[in-house]
């Protein structure tokens, strides 16, 4: 029973409390780049979650036999191979979306989130908890991507999954699309607002200040 709660915690912790994107600010490069529409955000989320879970599983299975000197290379080789396989599958079955994602699927290899989880967690845990942790982190990443992707598509085009939700002013409705939402800066704004909102609700996430402002001193004569 206790083991089960433990696994449940491993799975749900990264959703909000330990979210890899908003708390650890990992993997935001792709989070900014692929969230112009919900469809690409969802595809990217699924790809990353699959890669992360499988990589964590593989690394965890051979964790006792990875020589320390080459452990990063071994992990990156495993992650990169999985990414290539996923990319090939996307190109074969989801050609349209694969073109929209362009290089960002390939860049999952260098996503710090993936290496972070295999290095920090999978290397020290049994395959099941490692995969559950990886899956949870994948879900946490997906959650943020889908929220940002949804907001950007909704306000940028008035659509969700390519279906018109808000009637456009051009077509006789009332909604004027915010084209800023389709540009990269808006993802920064949304991500920043999201981090701010989560840290206001969960103040324990607020980081300690790295610097304290100097005390005000009297100007020298």
């Amino acid at each position, binding site marked *: 029973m206790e083991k089960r709660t433990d696994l449940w915690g491993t799975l749900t912790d990264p959703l909000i409390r330990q979210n890899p994107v908003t708390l650890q600010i990992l993997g935001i490069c792709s989070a900014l780049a692929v969230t112009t529409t919900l469809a690409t955000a969802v595809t990217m989320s699924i790809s990353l979650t699959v890669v992360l879970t499988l990589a964590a599983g593989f690394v965890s299975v051979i964790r*006792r*036999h990875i*020589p320390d*000197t080459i452990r990063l290379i071994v992990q990156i080789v495993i992650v990169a191979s999985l990414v290539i*396989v996923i990319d*090939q599958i996307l190109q*074969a079955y989801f050609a349209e979306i694969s073109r929209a994602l*362009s290089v960002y699927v390939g860049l999952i290899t260098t996503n710090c989130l993936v290496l972070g989880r295999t290095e920090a967690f999978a290397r020290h845990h049994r395959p099941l908890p490692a995969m559950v942790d990886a899956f949870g982190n994948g879900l946490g990443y997906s959650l943020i991507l889908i929220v940002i992707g949804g907001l950007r598509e909704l306000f940028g085009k008035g659509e969700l999954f390519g279906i018109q939700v808000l009637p456009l002013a051009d077509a006789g409705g009332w909604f004027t699309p915010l084209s800023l939402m389709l540009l990269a800066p808006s993802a920064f704004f949304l991500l920043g607002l999201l981090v701010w909102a989560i840290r206001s609700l969960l103040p324990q996430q607020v980081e300690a200040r790295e610097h304290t402002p100097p005390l005000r001193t009297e100007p020298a004569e």
Partner: protein
Amino acid sequence: MAARNWNPWLRLLALPNESRTKTVLVAFLVSAVCAALVSGATVALRPIQTANRAAEEQARIAALVEGIPGMATLLEQSGGALSTVVINLRDGRAAADVTPATLDAALSDPGNWTALDAGQDLAGLGQRPDYAQVFLLRDGDSVSLVLLPLSGQGYGGRMDAILALRGDMNTIAGIAVTQHSETPGLGARIEETSWQASFPGTELRDDGGEMRFRVARGPASGVHEVDGITGATRTGRGVTQMVRFWLGPDGYGPLLDAIERGEF
């Protein structure tokens, strides 16, 4: 695991992680498994990807044809279909023994390729297939439009395009870039319709029959030029050379002559 392997395998696992033998063997095994995985996926999925690319090319051809002014009516008059012909580039006639279905097989035979020497090889291809599949639109007895697949060397690698020529075989009716690996934001703008829009109406040769087409550096001046893309000079030159090669004597030149003589 075979019984014979059992012992060495266990011995390997029992080695201390820091030993040199184990480091090398683990690295080798991981690479081997990953290589098998990647190659397996690539080989197994290649037919589907090829089919996808072919479908995409068909869609681009359709979009190219639709984008040419007056094409819709022309298509209706001709019964709504382009005819596909495999051309023997050596003599510019329809190939007798190769059909669109057997084209791939024919092109996998190195005997059906012609090596190009440095003087001929404007497009940087090295060799040229002897057969190519082109699309013709007939208006009565004459050809009113021909779609020619081109390939050449850009800045980042190979580029493929389809060029549409009007019935005079001198006026460009449109272009579609089907594949390229140019720099995103610079050379990759060749796939944008706003750039491709400067092609229709451009003429290839002057009155003396001299090939004059080129991608300008900057805005086009004259009827033989199309606008260049700022920051993508090498890509523009690649497009120029590609068009000049394929519409010249070593490319579709014989075919264009044959069409002008009314042989199609």
